[in-house]
């Protein structure tokens, strides 16, 4: 393994860090549309696509830096679900004209995408196309997306569905960390054959691979959030005084900080391993390593979230305090990644 970054990667990482600090730090005045515009201007909505498709050809490590930035600044953009996940799906079936057209729209920033995995219902044949009925729960970015890439319940069809089309009902909700999402209800939503870029085993393979890329990115987002939460808690411990001394001078807290630091470093390192695997390893090996990173990240996320609040004392229980904001982001990411046990189960399955 080689963890050294090329000069180009360092340049990219630094520019991404700057971009997130300048654009996303502080929540004031941002909404989904302005977030998306900024990301498109930075070329990030085109990131996962090769140049031949009008993209910038970013690899998984590049996307990891983006995800780190999202976590670090608590940006609300559903970039990982909308671009990394949905974008990877489209990229992997770009031979289909419908997918190719949507890639252009996504890359240019004119269209916002979301991925919807159906949890119940069915997709039935209707002429050369299909009719969709059923439900997709917890669609990230689902309240503001223009188009949906829908996976049928058994994942043997990928279907592109217009967010404003007849029969599709969105039930929006806010996430724990105040991001937009929706449940979708499909009532006889018609899709033409052209709106189905891929079917069968190939569809399943593509969906699994995109979900892996997304999981690796969610791990990276968590790492960005954990690092920031640790930094801000350290800063608090250096400045908050009780008993005439900074609370960071109490050994009981110092040792806990050391454990937190170890947990963050391990998570970040294993996330890099998993991210490299997304680009380089076999699907099975990538699945195994992404699961391993998710286990590490889930455990560390809980530790950091809980300790950040505890060490802030009463302050940590307030909505204004960043410790709680990071804690909620980390909890939300753990919901997405699956608990430590669920990730462990995936690790066992893929070994």
């Amino acid at each position, binding site marked *: 393994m080689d963890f050294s970054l090329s000069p180009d990667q360092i340049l990219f990482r630094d520019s991404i860090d700057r971009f997130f600090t300048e654009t996303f730090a502080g929540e004031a005045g941002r909404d989904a549309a302005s977030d998306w515009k900024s990301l498109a201007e930075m070329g990030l909505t085109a990131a996962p696509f090769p140049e031949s498709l009008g993209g910038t050809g970013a690899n998984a490590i590049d996307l990891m830096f983006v995800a780190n930035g999202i976590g670090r600044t608590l940006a609300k953009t559903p970039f990982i679900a909308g671009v990394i996940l949905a974008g990877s799906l489209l990229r992997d079936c770009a031979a289909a004209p419908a997918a190719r057209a949507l890639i252009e729209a996504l890359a240019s920033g004119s269209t916002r995408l979301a991925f919807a995995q159906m949890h119940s219902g069915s997709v039935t044949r209707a002429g050369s196309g299909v009719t969709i009925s059923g439900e997709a729960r917890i669609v990230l970015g689902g309240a503001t997306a223009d188009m949906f890439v829908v996976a049928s319940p058994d994942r043997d069809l990928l279907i592109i569905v217009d967010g404003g089309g007849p029969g599709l009902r969105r039930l929006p909700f806010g996430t*724990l960390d105040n991001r937009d999402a929706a449940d979708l209800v499909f009532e006889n939503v018609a899709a033409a054959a052209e709106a189905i870029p891929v079917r069968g085993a190939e569809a399943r393979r593509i969906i699994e691979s995109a979900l892996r890329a997304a999981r690796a990115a969610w791990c990276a987002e968590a790492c960005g959030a954990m690092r920031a939460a640790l930094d801000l808690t350290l800063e608090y411990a250096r400045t908050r005084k009780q008993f005439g001394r900074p609370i960071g001078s109490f050994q009981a807290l110092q040792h806990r900080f050391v454990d937190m630091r170890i947990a963050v470093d391990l998570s970040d390192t294993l996330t890099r391993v998993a991210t490299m695997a997304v680009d380089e390893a076999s699907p099975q090996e990538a699945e195994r390593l992404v699961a391993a990173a998710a286990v590490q990240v889930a455990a560390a996320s809980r530790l950091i979230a809980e300790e950040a609040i505890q060490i802030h004392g009463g302050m940590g229980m307030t909505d204004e305090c960043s410790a709680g904001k990071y804690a909620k982001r980390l909890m939300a990411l753990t*919901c997405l990644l699956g608990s430590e046990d669920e990730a462990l189960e995936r690790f066992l399955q893929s070994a």
Partner: protein
Amino acid sequence: MRLTLNQDELDFRAMVDAWVQRNLPDDLREMVRVGEHLTRKEFSRWCRILDANGWSVPAWPTEYGGTGWSPLRRHLFEEQLLLSGAPRNTAAGIAMLGPILIAFGTQEQKDRYLPPIRRGETYWAQGFSEPGSGSDLATLRTSAVRDGAHFVVNGHKIWTSYAQSSEMMFALVRTNPDAKPQSGISFLLIDMASPGVKVRPIRMVDGGTDLNEVFLDDVRVPVENLIGEVDRGWDYAKHLLGFERTGIAGVAATKQQFARLKRLMEARSVSDALRRKAARAEIDLLAMDALILRTLTENPASRPGPEASMLKIQGTRVRQNVQRLLMELAGVEGLRHAEDPGEAVDRDLQWLAANYLDSRKVSIYGGTNEIQANVVAKAVLGL
């Protein structure tokens, strides 16, 4: 030693359960079941229902409406209320001010303040913590200066639970700036409607609204609102800290939450891993429960000591672990914001993430677990 409760105790619990089933309003029961935020309104309502049966202040002396039960019986009672699905009844007036008034108040103060607390009519806030004085409470700076028949109070309290809906606040204030920190503090009762009292609510991480800041600006407090002697307030407050040596562990609430976990696990398919972790938590809870019963029965007459801090540390750990497992049970559905969960939300899961976040407070308030550990290390272990 005897393994089980005796028949009398079992009958008592059954009687309490039957009473709750008859008297707990459905809407309150539902709020508790799903873990919704309760406010003063709900707490006071439940307190009034308990009071109608003579049960709102079981720990107080009978002349002030207490039940005269033994500590063990009180423990069984409080636990059964929660297990039967009722809200807790631990308002600061009942659990904190009451015992202090009873021990140190004048007859006039007792007659004036205790009955409306018992009836759930007045609500009290605890004004101890300040921005600069949390764990190191003795450095508190809110000052009270005698001016004729009044103290003039100036300062800034924070984390004052339910201050926004309380009629009164009991506060620690500095009356002697020259004495040693602990020796110059007095215990005052402050009417929240007094001119110069300003309350700023603080929104909590889980969306709850318990917390507040209280600004005191030349607030005139009649001298008859002083508890005991001037400059002795720290001693009175300390009396409180050891008062409920077992309640501080919160085992009743943990049992209630564990029952909720079991109910939810039965109703849906959950992983073996979660089942095993729940079993592990159950063992922690069994041990904790036994330790509490041991504390209550082995040596019933002993005064509460610094050992209570161990009960708090471990009790809050077990509680937080159960809340964590509930959050895990929610799985990806835990992603929904409890206050904006969408139409499709499963109401049984709606509040689990918020409840988990809220549970983080139990290792912070009432003296953080780190401070409790310092107490144990020093006073119990002699380190």
